[in-house]
């Protein structure tokens, strides 16, 4: 029979295991396909220091109520699927630790300014349509496929990359559009997500589609509806800072920037 070394035994006995705490998770439930009722369901879930809101929601789904509707995928703030309103502020469920919320009650609701599909899942059609409208790709007459030498590259200096690299981190989670007060009132506003992406491609010196994009955003429900509340930048989980992109984008329309 194996024996435990006395010293090791002593160390093991001194290891403190963190006591499991619990929080009340209030989940907003609704199913517009069935009726217009909305209610909050409460669940008590155990948490550790590292438990995220998504972990807690999956705990509820696994053990308490498997009918809770959520959208998630990567669990590491890369896919942008699990955006929701957490204690009143838009955030990614997988990127928000419960221990950092400093609250015994966590309220999760679907993001504002999007139609609800069911419970915490919302419809991104409007955001994706606006994203497509600003042509989120490099526009050029010529091609990277060269007939004589095969494939070539459009070269770019590291200095130029710095001009737009932060805006290329957008994961289309939609939190910025949810936090934006203009989106709350104007159903045709193009939104901070699309505007920041317009800047990302206009600032890219490989791109030749500046005028096309400026034409799209320079309209009555376009860029001029933004009044720099900055809420979009405050909720962005990837440091994109859409508010900065929008102000820089205005420079092109005002003739300050080429």
């Amino acid at each position, binding site marked *: 029979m194996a024996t435990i070394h006395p010293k090791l035994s002593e160390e093991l006995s001194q290891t403190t295991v963190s006591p499991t705490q619990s929080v009340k998770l209030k989940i907003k439930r609704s199913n517009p396909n069935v009726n217009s009722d909305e209610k909050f369901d409460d669940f008590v879930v155990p948490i550790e220091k590292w438990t995220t809101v998504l972990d807690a929601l999956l705990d509820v789904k696994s053990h308490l109520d498997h009918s809770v509707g959520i959208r998630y995928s990567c669990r590491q703030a890369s896919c942008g699927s699990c955006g929701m309103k957490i204690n009143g502020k838009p955030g990614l469920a997988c990127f928000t630790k419960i221990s950092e919320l400093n609250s015994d009650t966590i309220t999760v609701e679907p993001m504002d*300014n999007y*139609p609800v599909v069911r419970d915490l899942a919302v419809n991104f059609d409007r955001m994706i349509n606006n994203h497509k409208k600003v042509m989120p790709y490099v526009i050029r007459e010529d091609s990277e496929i060269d007939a004589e030498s095969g494939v070539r590259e459009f070269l770019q200096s590291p200095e130029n990359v710095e001009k737009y690299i932060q805006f290329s981190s957008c994961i289309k989670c939609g939190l910025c559009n949810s936090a934006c007060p203009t*989106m709350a009132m104007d159903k045709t506003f193009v939104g901070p997500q699309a505007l920041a992406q317009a800047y990302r491609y206009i600032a890219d010196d490989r791109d030749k589609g500046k005028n096309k994009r400026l034409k799209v955003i320079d309209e009555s429900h376009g860029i001029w509806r933004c009044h720099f509340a*900055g809420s979009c930048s405050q909720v962005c989980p990837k440091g994109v*800072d859409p*508010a900065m992109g929008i102000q820089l984008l*205005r420079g092109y329309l005002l003739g300050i920037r080429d």
Partner: protein
Amino acid sequence: MERETGAREGLKGWLNPGKIGKFGIERLAWLLMRLTGLGLLAYFIGHIYETSHILDGKAVWDKSLEMTQTTEGHLFLALVIGMCVFHTGNGIRLMIAQMGYGIGKTERPDYPYKPQSINMKGKACIYATLGMAALAMWYGMAVMFS
């Protein structure tokens, strides 16, 4: 079919004081900019209506002026002064930001991703504008009530 109603927060997204607590002084500045803009527009229309009384003769004109010579009238005018100063000061801040000044520089973002456009320069400008509006209101009231 997803529910379209409720897809937007509507006025709640503007006026909810909880939003200011969560999003900070920039959100308050945004709200006050809109409210003072609407207030000044209403004042402008009222002012045109009031001054149009001059066409009805001196007696009617004097009577319409008396409306502003009351305590309520003075408080209202002090509010107009405050709205004017805040809207002008914050408008200048926004124009400077729109020209690309005071919003930081683009760079590779690093965790914990603090947005550069939301910075102390902007916050200081907002507090200064609020202070100037309060000072102008106080001065206006001191003159009107003296």
